[in-house]
């Protein structure tokens, strides 16, 4: 089992959620749902996080912040968009200041449905994101290996 799949650390950002999904994200840490079973730790530091949980629609004010957090996370990383607003902007989609779902700013790997999303489905989303991370890590290793081989071959040619 890959190490990143066993300890996916989370960072949670409330883009412009009504707080409904955020309460459900916090519920995942309580004894009933206990996200720590899967090795999850909610950190406050994007540099320590592997999975980015975003709730709510993205607007023009917080799009740079979402982008900033995403950019600070080390590769490989996964994004989980939680709830209807994070998918498409939800009921706020038509607002003049809303630019849409999370995918309007950063690439999303997993969408968790619901308004508000249920803790069970959020946990499911996190576990799926951890599997995606594993795949991404594998792909990254393969490309690195290929690059190293390429460099070696280049050196030999010279």
């Amino acid at each position, binding site marked *: 089992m890959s*190490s*990143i799949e*066993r*300890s996916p*650390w989370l*960072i*949670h950002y409330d883009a412009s959620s009504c707080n409904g999904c955020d309460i459900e994200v916090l519920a995942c840490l309580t*004894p009933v749902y*206990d996200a*720590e*079973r*899967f*090795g999850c*730790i*909610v*950190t*406050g*530091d994007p*540099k*320590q996080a*592997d999975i980015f949980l975003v709730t709510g629609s993205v607007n023009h004010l917080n799009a740079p912040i979402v982008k900033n957090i995403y950019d600070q996370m*080390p*590769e490989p990383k996964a994004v989980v968009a939680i709830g209807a607003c994070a998918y498409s902007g939800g009921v706020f989609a038509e607002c003049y200041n809303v630019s849409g779902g999370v995918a309007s700013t950063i690439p999303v790997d997993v969408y968790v449905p619901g308004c508000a999303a249920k803790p069970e489905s959020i946990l499911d989303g996190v576990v799926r994101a951890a599997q995606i991370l594993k795949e991404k*890590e594998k792909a990254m290793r393969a490309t690195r290996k290929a690059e190293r081989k390429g460099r070696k071959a280049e050196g030999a040619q010279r």
Partner: protein
Amino acid sequence: MKGIEIYIAIAYVVLGPLLGGLLDGFDRVITARLQGRVGPPLLQPFYDLRKLFTRRIRPVNRLQLPLIASHLVFAVLTGVLFFYGSDILLIIFVLTLASIFLVLAAYSTGSPFSTIGADRELLLMTAYEPMIIIALVALFGVAKSFNFYEILSSAMPIYLYLPGIYLGLVFVLQMKLRKSPFDISASHHAHQELVMGLTADMGGPALGMVELAHWYESVYLFALVLLFFSSSWVSAIVGLSVTYSLIIFLDNVTARVKWQRALSIAWLVTLVAGAGNLIPFYLISRGTP
């Protein structure tokens, strides 16, 4: 006894993280059970550490990684000197140096969270150092030695002579191990007011080294506790398990204090439990040659 110390010191370098990680793993499982959760697997700290070292991350500046590496080196050196049987007073200085490197690493990032975390770590150091020094002086008073093995082999029930000092030491261990109510400088929990505090802006291998140094530190801190219970195997096992359980229990039932209170309580405990135990002990032992 001579000659074996070097092997114990080498064993500490190799097996220290294993023991420290297991202590951390048991801690997380017990904490989860106390809160009615299933909790992570026992080996979770090792999975976390392995992941942290596979992460590739650009450090925030050129100073951070060397400072954190120095923190790790000096934390290991403290334990090595301790188990090699060097003078424990010397060890206290190396221990302080290790902590100072971590504080400097936190200051170097410039993040407001890590700066406040570093401030608080310095305050915690001023809070716990007097108690540790008093504990060592008292251990010398009983065993007439500053050497780990000589105190260990004196085989006296030191906890009977120095109950106050023992309690005071457990109290400051709570600070040194970053446990509630004194986890004000850094915490694993993101829901604290300082986000990650001291470890903010440290990612990947940097955080891995801090974690590793913490495991090394916890091993020799528990070895220090062992000195109080070295009279027999039974007392050693009971003493260490009671201390470990007490620390986890306090971590779970107490709320985080403000730094002002942490400082004043720690000095009060040092004065009452530490000096209150040391002075009568000194007066009595002077009366009986």
